[in-house]
């Protein structure tokens, strides 16, 4: 049993004291002391307001914080929430924290939380990001109710985002996941989501935990599992999602966690996704994706330079990954002036598919493949920004939809290159 070595004796003792629960709120953390307070307050208020009768536990899986994050979680007094919201819990609300054994890895945190959900027989398990400072108490019920009351197995979020935030999601993760697995899930790699106890238990038994992707890309594997298994999936609109400040290095890490995991999932699920054509919408509760139109400064020149430099410097690597025609097209695009720059959706879709096929074949180190995609993604992101600079929310939606259409249209191409490169 995986959890035998995953859970410390002290954590197990705390779980015994908690006993069976209806809802488990998981908070994976690592040095989040600066942002965790409003998150925990919102979670507690959400529990008091929406689930006063249910047995609820907040479980903090911490990756070795040095800034006192776990203490902030377990020390947050429910009385403070009670005093503000004047709502009252019928039950004891448990807040427990554990430091998982390995270095900070989101997958291990998720696995710890899922193991706890499994042991406590949670009917619903909801994960909340420790840096979601815009979280509102009712996020909790929006995520949990479909699982707890309506027998969904996974609730994926939809956020209100600033129009140039979530570019990786809009340009790669969403279109590709949708094309591959046939479900229109806007946030396949979400930091907030809810799953059923059944899915939590089933996912715990997956092989992924023995692979690197299990430690760093488990969330997207979970979404893929939900889409490819006999699970009911829906989306719920939450509200404004704050985007944490990210450096260039963060993008690489994010792509390793997300794109790498997505590519990896294709290996084991080929029989499933290869038979899927087109895509279907999933039930959505609340508003569809919303876009805020506040002007945002974008350094187009920097993005252009990163793309052009990458195409030039990584050409030997691209030769082993990309087809000659795609590489040639990229090299042509790299010669365009920043003001004329345009990385078309079909070329981008082909690029991503060829990377996926190369990843499958492991033509070079898989990690290097993901790294090599980063500058190309920047080029695509630049096109997205330029195309939508003056666009409305609807324009952006049309743009995303158009890109998704390209990914779906070119899926046979993926199957082609996938077979060629086996």
């Amino acid at each position, binding site marked *: 049993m995986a959890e035998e070595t995953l859970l410390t004796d002290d954590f197990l003792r*705390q779980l015994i004291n908690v006993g069976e629960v209806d809802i488990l709120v998981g908070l994976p953390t690592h040095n989040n002391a600066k942002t965790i307070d409003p998150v925990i307050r919102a979670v507690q208020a959400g529990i008091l307001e929406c689930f006063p009768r249910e047995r609820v536990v907040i479980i903090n899986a911490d990756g070795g914080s040095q800034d006192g994050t776990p203490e902030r979680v377990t020390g947050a007094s429910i009385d403070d929430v009670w005093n503000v919201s004047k709502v009252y819990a019928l039950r004891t609300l448990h807040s427990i924290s554990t430091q998982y054994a390995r270095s900070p890895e989101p997958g291990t945190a998720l696995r710890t939380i899922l193991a706890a959900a499994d042991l406590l027989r949670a009917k619903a398990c909801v994960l909340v990001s420790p840096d979601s400072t815009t979280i509102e108490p009712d996020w909790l019920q929006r995520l949990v109710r479909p699982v707890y009351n309506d027998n969904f197995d996974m609730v994926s979020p939809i956020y209100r985002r600033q129009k140039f935030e979530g570019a990786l999601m809009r340009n790669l993760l969403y279109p590709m996941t949708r094309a591959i697995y046939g479900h229109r899930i806007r946030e396949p790699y979400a930091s907030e989501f809810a799953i059923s106890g059944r899915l939590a238990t089933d996912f715990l038994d997956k092989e992924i935990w023995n692979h690197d992707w299990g430690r760093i890309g488990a969330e997207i594997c979970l979404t893929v599992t939900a889409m490819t298994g006999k699970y009911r999936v829906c989306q719920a609109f939450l509200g404004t999602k704050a985007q944490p400040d990210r450096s260039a290095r963060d993008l690489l890490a994010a792509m390793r966690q997300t794109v790498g995991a997505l590519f990896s999932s294709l290996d084991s699920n080929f029989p499933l996704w290869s038979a899927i054509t087109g895509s279907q919408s999933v039930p959505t509760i609340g508003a569809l994706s919303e876009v805020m139109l506040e002007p945002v400064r974008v350094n187009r020149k920097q993005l252009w330079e990163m793309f052009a430099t990458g195409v030039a410097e990584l050409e030997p690597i691209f030769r082993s990954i990309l087809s000659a025609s795609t590489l040639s097209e990229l090299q042509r695009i790299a010669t365009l002036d920043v003001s004329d720059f345009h990385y078309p959706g079909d070329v981008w879709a082909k690029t991503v598919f060829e990377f996926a096929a190369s990843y499958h074949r492991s033509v070079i180190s898989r990690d290097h493949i993901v790294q090599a995609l980063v500058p190309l993604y920047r080029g695509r992101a630049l096109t997205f920004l330029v195309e939508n600079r003056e666009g409305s929310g609807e324009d952006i939606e049309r743009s995303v939809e158009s890109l998704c259409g390209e990914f779906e249209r070119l899926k046979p191409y993926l199957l082609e290159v996938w077979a060629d490169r086996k």
Partner: protein
Amino acid sequence: MKREAGWYKDAIIYQIHVRTFSDSNGDGIGDFQGLAQKLDYVQELGVNAIWLMPFFSSPLRDDGYDISDYRSIHPNYGTLDDFKTFLSSAHDRGIRVIVELVANHTSDQHPWFLESRSSKDNPKRDWYVWSDTDTGYRGTRIIFIDTEMSNWAWDPISKSYYWHRFFSHQPDLNYDNPAVREEVWNVMKFWLELGVDGFRLDAVPYLIEREGTSCENLPETHQVVRELRKKVDDQFPGAMLLAEANQWPADLRPYFGNGDEFHMAFHFPLMPRMFMGLRLEDRKPITEIMQQTPEIPASCQWCLFLRNHDELTLEMVTDIERDYMYDIYARDKTMRLNLGIRRRLAPLLDNDRRRIELMNGMLMSLPGTPIIYYGDEIGMGDNIYLGDRNGVRTPMQWSGGWNGGFSIADPERLYSPPILNPVYGYQAVNVLSQKRTEHSLLSWMKHIIQIRRSSPVFGSGSIEFLHPANHRVLAYVRQLGRETFLIVNNLSSAAQAVELDLRRYKGNILIEMFGKNIFPRVGDLPYLLTMGPYQFYWFRLRRI
């Protein structure tokens, strides 16, 4: 029987309605002679006090809580001589008798009220609360919200309004009138001289009315109580006064005064929270209300109960708690009455023997004097299709025979149909069959009462709650002198492991009080107990 001071602290009270208990003359209604014949049973049960619901002359529009003569017995129940015989027989068995004093109001058929309403000049006019309008005391809540629209009722005879906190046929007495207070004392004196051991004073908080207040718990009400108490102490030392005041603990505390008001008061808020804690499988509701329960004078005592003749009152809970209780315990709206649930103990607990035992275990081990409602000791059911609270006042089930052994009358003549369904009917649930079975609920109740009565710790000891991390476990230590008991209750339907911090009792061994088995000695480490579903332990701590 000598009234010893403080006898009530170690008492276990059995609540009986004469009408429902045993019919000696075959008229279909229980009576004092029938009750006297069943005193052996009451004695065998192990209780040492009886609380009798109203048996006075009354039109019986509120089951006797509408009294028309405080000094006579309702003819349905026998004569004053029958009462005296019963009282004497009870005392002979060491059983004390507490009677009702419905002092807040009378029946509208009481001669006092008939005189009072006869004219505005009648000397007894001021014995009740009259007004030319129905606009006074606007801040006063209505208690029987299902039946009453106002606390004022129009009297067509004297063409004015009279005040009533309960049904409109129950006008409130005017305690601002010294003549009323004197007459109420005379009534008490009458029964104390006959030998009763105490009174349960009904509806105490509502004795006095004042404009601009809630007309509840007023200082003047306490003054009335203090006057009565002083007279009781001076003339009938040892007699006990029990307050029925459905209030929050902080509002109840003044009814003990400085030991110069009531000897006992019902702990109304605790009872629904015991049911709540059980279904939530969480000790929080119980420990919270106990934390809010103030200290009371040493001579005073809380009165604890699980069920009684009224609905399971939900007045002293929050809205969210009330909604929860309704959803869990009274999903069928027929079960609801006013702000409460009109059901007996066993049906409330789905006839689950383990939960019934656990609830009784807590009743007997939390600080206070427990009251057992007649029939709950055998797991009697209820009939929610009878009106008002009559569904929990059905005939006592003595045997599987004719009318459940309650009466030889034709079944159609009984004051109330007995419970007949296959689960709770008298053929399935009755005293006779349970007396013959060692492991029946009745036998178990006798056992726990015997253990409870074996030590004054339960009645008079201190309580300290333990705080094990497992919130499904309610644990507390009761202590008096050198005796220490540890009580551990598993509120969960599943087995639980619990670690108790008993370091301060290091060196003691634990002796389980039901089986008298020895448990391991307490050491420095947390004391680990594993408990089955709804299991509870009573341990005596001994240093050997």
